[in-house]
């Protein structure tokens, strides 16, 4: 690979590895709480924010982040207000936001909707690495929340009875998922973002007996497969998101085949 490749690949590798770690950190809760559809839905909803950012000529992340967090808050609000299930609320909101994105996305933009839908390492700048680094710092700050989130994931009633502010912590979790999804869009794309949240933790779930073990193994798998996928993407000019997910899917298949029933 020549210098040009490394110039392009460096921010993607750096940002990708940081996003990989954050996705795994929050993904163990996505998998264990059955929030996979919420992750996918928020990623699709983020497209509305991305499109507005492109339309207004500002960094898409600046619009997509508050936009997706607003959608996440609305999911919780609709669920609490109407008693509808989360998946129904997210189903309504993500299709609406996606529709908005497709309508307002400028047709003459150099990076078309497909770049955001499937990821493009050419879109990843050092700015995105800084955003990913901020997210890592937030994750480090949320380490104390891991115990609370884990307890509420196992048994919400017992966690509440033990005085944990479960509802507030759940809100933090969904906002954190929303932020992770938005920051990873350029790298893997809207369509494949949820896979980053799901495949490494699901693979780790197959290999471990404790939740802390699952968290550590998910971090390891994600931290290895994302840079490997990006290298493949650069070597063979494959879409970055597809390359990462292909490797993660292979690892998952191996773990599923090796798992003793």
């Amino acid at each position, binding site marked *: 690979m020549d210098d040009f490749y490394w110039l392009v690949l460096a921010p993607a590798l750096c940002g990708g590895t940081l996003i990989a770690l954050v996705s795994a950190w929050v993904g163990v809760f996505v998998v*264990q709480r059955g929030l996979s559809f919420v992750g996918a839905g928020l990623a699709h909803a983020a497209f509305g924010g991305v499109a507005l950012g492109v339309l207004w000529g500002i960094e898409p992340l600046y619009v997509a982040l508050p936009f997706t967090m607003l959608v996440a808050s609305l999911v919780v609000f609709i669920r609490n207000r109407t008693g509808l299930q989360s998946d129904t609320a997210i189903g309504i909101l993500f299709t609406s936001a996606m529709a908005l994105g497709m309508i307002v996305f400028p047709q003459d933009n150099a990076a078309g909707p497909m770049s955001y839908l499937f990821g493009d390492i050419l879109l990843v700048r050092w700015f995105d690495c800084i955003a990913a680094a901020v997210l890592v710092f937030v994750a480090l700050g949320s380490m104390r929340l891991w115990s609370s989130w884990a307890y509420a994931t*196992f*048994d919400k*009633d*017992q966690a509440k*009875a*033990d*005085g944990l502010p479960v509802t507030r912590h759940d809100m933090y979790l969904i906002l954190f998922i929303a932020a992770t999804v938005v920051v990873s869009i350029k790298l893997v794309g809207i369509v494949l973002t949820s896979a980053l949240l799901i495949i490494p933790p699901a693979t780790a779930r197959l290999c471990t007996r*404790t*939740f802390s073990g699952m968290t550590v193994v998910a971090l390891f798998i994600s931290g290895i497969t994302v840079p490997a996928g990006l290298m493949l993407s650069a070597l063979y000019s494959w879409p970055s998101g597809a390359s990462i997910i292909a490797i993660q899917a292979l690892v998952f298949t191996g773990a599923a085949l090796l798992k003793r029933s």
Partner: protein
Amino acid sequence: MTDGQPSAVQCDGISVQLGEQFALQHVSMSIPVGAFCTILGPNGGGKSTFLRVLLGLQAVTRGSVQLFDAPISAVNPRRIGTVPQSKRYDQNFPARALDVVATGIHGKWSFRLDETTRASCLQALDRVGLRSLADRRVGVLSGGELQRVYLARALVRQPELLLLDEPATGMDVRSEADLHSILEDYQTDHTATVVMVSHDWSTAKHHSSHIMLLNSTLRWSGASTDGPDDEVMREVFGHRGHMHPMTQVGCTHG
């Protein structure tokens, strides 16, 4: 019920409305510190709702509740141990029995169990006869084994108030006898207050110091040596009460 003794539980006119129905209506009662109180009543009589109120999981529509002379929100949750009837836990969660018991000590999920925590958890599991299953995944435990894991979890924090919702569910007769012996030993050693929901009149009479009959409203409460008259029992249960097969013979009503 307290006769001037300090009370562990004090309810003044509490009502709980769930949808259109009142699960509890105008319940006023107190349970003295150190009592073993069994709450009896028919299905849907509000027994589990009452325990959820004491755990702070269910808000009251009217009235007030105090634990140890303080509002529930002001009481340190570590003073309370609980065994719920229906376990709303995630069966696929990667957790060992040991991890669940450890939540009883820390009130949160532990990333790693230190030696002291591990030793305390093993001791608690030993007490309920499950030490050998400490590293077994909770999702594969039987109903009775899971009840005992939750009992170990409740006891490991050495609570002053034990709230048990039909703790013998899923247990065989031997395990049920062990359960009562564990509870009595614990209560004696720690002067703890036990509030237990049950359907079994004769077991209640055998093991409790106090009995409450709950059917949305409080129908009767008093010392287990007394007891409601047949008319109240018929009114609440439609007959004289559920009798445990092991203790049916020789059991007397007040």
